[in-house]
């Protein structure tokens, strides 16, 4: 028999919250970005799984995942560009140090 859908979803949940944990606890911006990728990935899995198990005839979920991957790529590229730029300026990429415009 096939694997029940819920298994996939639990995996993605764990992945998502691992991402959440990382995002909250890490100071390094690259690590935060990596955590974001984890979360995105978890969501992507969910899209695909729901599509496959609940509406097998449609393909919205998959297409959405496709777009999400594309956007993730774009986002990462920009984010990394910004991070590197920041690094060039302050030789550091900890999120807490970026408070020049606070308040």
């Amino acid at each position: 028999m096939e694997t029940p859908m819920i298994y996939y979803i639990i995996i993605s949940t764990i992945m998502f919250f691992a991402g959440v944990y990382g995002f909250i606890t890490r100071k390094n911006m690259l690590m935060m970005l990596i955590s974001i990728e984890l979360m995105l990935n978890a969501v992507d899995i969910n899209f695909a799984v729901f599509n496959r198990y609940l509406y097998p005839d449609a393909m919205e979920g998959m297409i959405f995942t496709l777009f999400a991957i594309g956007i993730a790529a774009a986002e990462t590229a920009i984010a990394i560009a910004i991070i590197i730029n920041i690094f060039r300026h302050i030789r550091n990429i900890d999120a807490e140090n970026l408070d020049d415009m606070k308040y």
Partner: protein
Amino acid sequence: MEYTVIILLLPMAMFLLLGLLDSKLSPRMAGILGTLGMIVCTAVAYTTAYQYFTQPRIDGEFPPVTAINIEWLRFTDFLHIDLGIYLDPISVMMLVVITTVSLMVHIYSLGYMHGEIGFQRYYAFLSLFSMSMLGLVVATNIFQMYIFWELVGVSSYLLIGFYYTKPEAVSASKKAFIVTRFADLGFLIGILILSFYTKTFDFATLTAAPGTIITETAGASFLGCSVAAWALALIFMGGAGKSAMFPLHIWLPDAMEGPTPVSALIHAATMVVAGVYLVARLFPLFCVTPEVLDFITVVGAVTALYAAIVACVQSDIKRVLAFSTISQIAFMMVALGVARDTDLHAGLGYMASMFHLFTHAMFKALLFLGAGAIIHAVHSNEMTAMGGLRKYMPITHITFLIACLAIAGIPPFSGFFSKDEILTAVMNKSLFWGIWMTVVAGLTAFYMFRLYYRIFWWNKPDYSHHTPHEAPLTMTIPLIILAAITCVAGFIPFGEFVSVNGQPYHIHLDPTVATTSIIIALIGISLATWLFLKENKKPGAMADSMRTLYTAAYHRFYIDEIYQFVTHKIIFALICRPIAWFDRHIIDGTMNMLANVTQGVSARIKGLQSGYIQSYAWIFLAGALVIAIITMCCF
């Protein structure tokens, strides 16, 4: 008699003309213009008086005439302020008095104020005052009277403060205005109460049916007195303030800081008798509340004695005259207080009061103008700088003596007749007050002759640096005219014109009263002669023997100090300052506190907006989870 409106409009025009042009006119021009205006006014007033008193009597009375009446401001359907001219015996009499004295003062000032800075302004203010005072006496309604009442207050303020660089003059003017304002508050409230019940301001309506107020306020009482009595007592308070009745008299002696002719005009002859005039005007109303009249008697009698005692020891000649004025006005008040309108005999006081008002205005103006001439000559107000002046200033001396004899009550001068009527009236009513007032009359003779001897006899001080000389003609002519009036005014059959119910009253002297008063006046005069004819040690010794009384009287029984204490220590320190403090610290503090609390709270919660995306994410997710849990629990 519409032409009487000139009496008001002309001084008004003069005021505007002189006030607006001010220094563009030469002083001489301004003085002459002002005086000319006053001459015309006087002429018109005399014509009016002549015409009024020669008209046929109706039912034995001279009927009141409303020469002109214009609605100025309408409040409600029945309450409105009119401006108009109401002529009846007393207002016509007042017109004559005011224009006469005012004209004298106008002429006199040409000499007295010569060369002063602000000469034009002085004449402008004099015109303003004349206008207001004339408007006051011809008022057709109580509110018009109040309007001009305020205006005379202001002109008095302006004239007392004429030498505005002198701090004493400034504070005296302020004091005069505020004290009278306080009294006017009573007047105003009285008017309000009166008009609330009677629904009219009009004198004619008010006095025609004086009982209305009693019926309208039936049953209404406050602190044990009827509301009608309160209303009239409050109105009397206004009169007491203007007429410097104890304890509202404190402004008048200080008001002597103003130029002397002003003192003669405002603070001796005209404005200060406004209170008496007010009571006389509303006399029928007062008669329905006899308790108020009794109150007036007491206030008047106390004031008369008080002022007479104080006058005995003052050293500033104008102060002596000021206290003498207070005392004399108190005589008029007492006379009104003892009068009743039941019949001519009971109403003798009313006539006597008006008569005394008339004669007093003349001789007191004369005294002040004489004092002005003396001050002009010796450049000081203090008795110590005077003495033996009879040789230097013969005209002033004679006229001053005439006035002194008049005020002391020596026949045949005018004061004797009027004062005698007052004493008779008081005696008729109550023996106690009669004796009281007779004693005061004796004191009057004493202090007036003390003044006279100290100025004209006593011993010559050192005049070497500046020899006194007789005043110029512009000043002596008014003195002579007034002295002449003083000599003959007593023979005017005053009762024919003015009496309580308008019926002619034949003045006849009560021999007992007349004799007593002459004797007591002579005693006073001889005492003064004995003490002050030549420089000697007796006055000093007497003062020493009654040191406490003397000092107290010299300090006017510390009434001023009490006022000073009340105003500064109580009203300013205990009301104004705390309120100002309360406003700045409590009310404003509350507002500022609200602002500070807001700022503080936002400073605190600003920490939540740390800018750390991780905290945001944590809070966001935690919140989402909480909501999820709640949702799951609920559904």
